[in-house]
């Protein structure tokens, strides 16, 4: 193969590669319009079927869980309360367990919510620390929590029964 042929082949391969790389994420337009209408949203956490986030409207924020298959929010009884400020949220793949970090009565706490029974369980940090971010394994069996202790950021792994 001549130098010219090799050069052309390289250019052709380059064009093909850049064509592959050009595949872009496709906005989910209908859902995004719905999210915009819901107000200001932050701290998204995604599983295959569920989107959890903190949604604000009228100066008050709450945890919102959207069923992506039906594109509708689902009720979260006993989770949101007017005197609590949610900071971070995570959801498992079944949409059954939500881990939430919230401020309540000048205390920052990590809670685990079970949607089917509407129960809320506080998970204490051991040793004590201030949680700031949480993520939940897709099977809902383990949490990773970013914790501040003595001026240091640490990550705790917490097994869940």
């Amino acid at each position, binding site marked *: 193969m001549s130098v010219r042929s090799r050069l052309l082949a390289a250019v052709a391969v380059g064009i093909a590669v850049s064509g592959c790389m050009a595949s*872009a*994420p*496709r906005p989910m337009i209908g859902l995004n319009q719905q*999210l915009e209408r819901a107000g200001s949203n932050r701290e998204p956490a995604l599983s295959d079927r569920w989107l959890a986030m903190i949604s604000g409207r009228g100066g008050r924020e709450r945890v919102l869980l959207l069923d992506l298959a039906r594109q509708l929010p689902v009720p979260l009884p006993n989770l949101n309360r007017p005197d609590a400020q949610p900071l971070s949220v995570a959801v498992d793949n079944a949409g059954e367990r939500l881990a939430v970090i919230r401020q309540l009565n000048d205390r920052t706490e990590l809670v685990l919510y079970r949607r089917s029974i509407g129960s809320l369980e506080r998970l204490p940090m051991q040793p004590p620390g201030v949680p700031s971010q949480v993520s939940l394994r897709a*099977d809902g069996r383990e949490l990773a929590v970013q914790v501040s202790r003595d001026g240091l950021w640490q990550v705790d792994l917490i097994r869940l029964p």
Partner: protein
Amino acid sequence: MERNGRLSLILQQQPDGRMVPLRRIQGHEPHSSPSLSWNGRYLAALVQQGNQRLAVIEDRLSGRLHPLRLPGNPMAVKLTLAPDAQRLAIELIRDGRRQVQMFDLSNMLEPDKPAGSRISGAPR
């Protein structure tokens, strides 16, 4: 983890704690907002490119890095990847307002399903 004054992602295998190298996103610190697919094939994160925060996905199986160029070039704050890597949600700041936007990645990435999942169309 902070390295040389910049936040850098590390990937640690559980439960043995072995560190797994992330070759494709090195050099684009500071990193933030890591998110893993089911089996850890894909790692999504925000990285620095010039003066911009850029959402990327590293495919640890193929070694490819997928930069996610978002319409309108908004400021990305946080991202989260669905466990099967077929969708992504990003928190953006647009016109001074925080928004969450969803993106379909099924034209870009193979699904990363949990072990034992039924493959659609497979013989029973």
